[in-house]
């Protein structure tokens, strides 16, 4: 399998805090990679580094063999890296359709406004927002806003889509819908990095999981192995529990 994204000892400091510390891993074409870790582990910061929101303090990031470490956010977006935001960020004074058209127009290769709107409609149909195209983005419910984020990402025609907690705050029926959508997107050949706290989501979608803790990578492997990894259990539940748990299961 060809490597699509490669991180080589990527670090980011905020003042004295090592938000991301010497993280290296690869993502292959067509893979669904899960990114887990307790709150504050550096998951979102890592996504911010990949998408150029913050520059990395050190290390290199390669996308499709090309060094994108020093590129700015809009250039990276046009290369085919899309993301959703954990805290949804729609353009509140634009309609749902206009919101999605933005992605098509500026990163999705739409030839003009008309084409962008046509493409946006398709993505909204796919994400089940076909009946809300003319509503203002600020009037949507949280579940629909999350789907709007997804539609915006898809409109960019990404090769790599990063989903930052698209399921947080949704009920279980909404989650099932979202998971079906994510699997369909993956079947179309889009590589996906998914951040999620819900283990149900992780186990049913991710083919591989990378775990972060205090900015450091503590595990990388198939889901079952990572979730049994004592360091991962310790990160989530504390060292006492980890000792007891690995003792009883060993």
């Amino acid at each position, binding site marked *: 399998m060809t490597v699509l994204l490669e991180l080589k000892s990527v670090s980011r400091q905020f003042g004295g805090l090592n938000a991301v510390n010497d993280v290296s891993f690869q993502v292959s074409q067509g893979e669904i990679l899960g990114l887990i870790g307790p709150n504050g582990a550096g998951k979102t910061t890592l996504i911010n580094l990949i998408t150029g929101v913050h520059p990395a303090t050190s290390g290199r990031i390669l996308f499709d063999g090309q060094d994108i470490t020093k590129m700015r956010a809009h250039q990276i977006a046009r290369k085919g890296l899309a993301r959703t935001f954990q805290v949804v960020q729609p353009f509140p004074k634009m309609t749902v359709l206009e919101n999605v*058209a933005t992605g098509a127009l500026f*990163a999705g290769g739409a030839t003009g406004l008309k084409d962008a709107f046509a493409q946006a409609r398709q993505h909204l149909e796919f994400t089940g927002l076909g009946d809300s195209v003319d509503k203002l983005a600020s009037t949507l419910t949280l579940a629909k806003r999350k789907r709007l984020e997804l539609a915006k990402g898809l409109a960019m025609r990404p090769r790599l889509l990063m989903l930052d907690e698209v399921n947080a705050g949704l009920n279980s029926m909404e989650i099932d819908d979202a998971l079906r959508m994510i699997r369909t997107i993956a079947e179309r050949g889009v590589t996906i990095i998914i951040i999620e706290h819900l283990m149900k989501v992780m186990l049913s979608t991710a083919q591989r999981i990378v775990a972060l803790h205090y900015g450091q990578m503590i595990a990388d492997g198939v889901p079952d192995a990572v979730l049994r990894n004592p360091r991962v259990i310790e990160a989530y539940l504390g060292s006492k529990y980890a000792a007891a748990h690995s003792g009883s299961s060993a």
Partner: protein
Amino acid sequence: MKRDWVILVCGAAAIGALGWSGDNYFIRLLTILCMYATLAQSWNFIGGFAGYPSFATAAFFGLGAYTSGVLQNQGLPILMCWGLAGLCAAVFAVLIGGAILHLRGHYFAIATLIIAEMLREIVNTTPNLTGGGMGLNLPILRISVDVQSRVFLLAMLVLAVVTTAAAILLQRSRLGFGLRCIQQNESAASILGVNAYQYKTAAFGMSAVFVGMAGAIYASWVNYIEPPDVFDILIAVKPLVMVLLGGIGTIFGPIIGAMVLLALEELVWRNFLTVHAAALGVIIILLVLFLPNGLFSLLKDLSAKRAKQ
């Protein structure tokens, strides 16, 4: 969009017809109206569409006035001078914009505020070229006063129409779309592939080109310019008030605002000469508190209500 063009053509024709038949006081008022409309419309590009509150209007206006004045005194034809003034202002804006458009909100506003002061000092210290604090006389057009007043009205009217046409085109363009995204959430816009820096710089340049030309026409119109006149801070503040009055980010809001402010100036301020600056302040505060979307939004609300009934 079609409706916008119809309104623009009708409005321009009406002002032209009124001006042709009116007396010289009325023509002067209409000329100022067109100038104000140009300034307000221009401010709307950067302040309204992109959401960057600029106080650089006075800088562009004065720069245009002096560019044209100096060139005209070198014997260049008047229309060419006006054009070069616009070009000079736009190039200046792009260069300055490159340096300050990474600032946001108040910081950007403060940075733009000092540009006019800087240019004013440059003019003051170069008396051989610009006349310095003594001011600069411009060549007088050798045509009758009545014809002159109509020529300058026509020039300002054409400029206001061109600026408004640019706004109409901008609203439905890729650039306009990108600016609206930047105005609402700049980092989200970048993530979606909008080159925010480039777009903001373009908007800043657009907000300068027509203002520079307005300054140039103004200079030719009044025949004499001096730094405190063309770099006046009020030239930077008034467009902002007009746009807030009329409706920020809309096509005809700035023009409505220009009309209302001009009417206020003529009717109220000449009766309260000493407190007109305070009146301006009160208007801004009332606007922000009670009508953040301007008079244009009020009209829209009314027509929407009527449509429902």
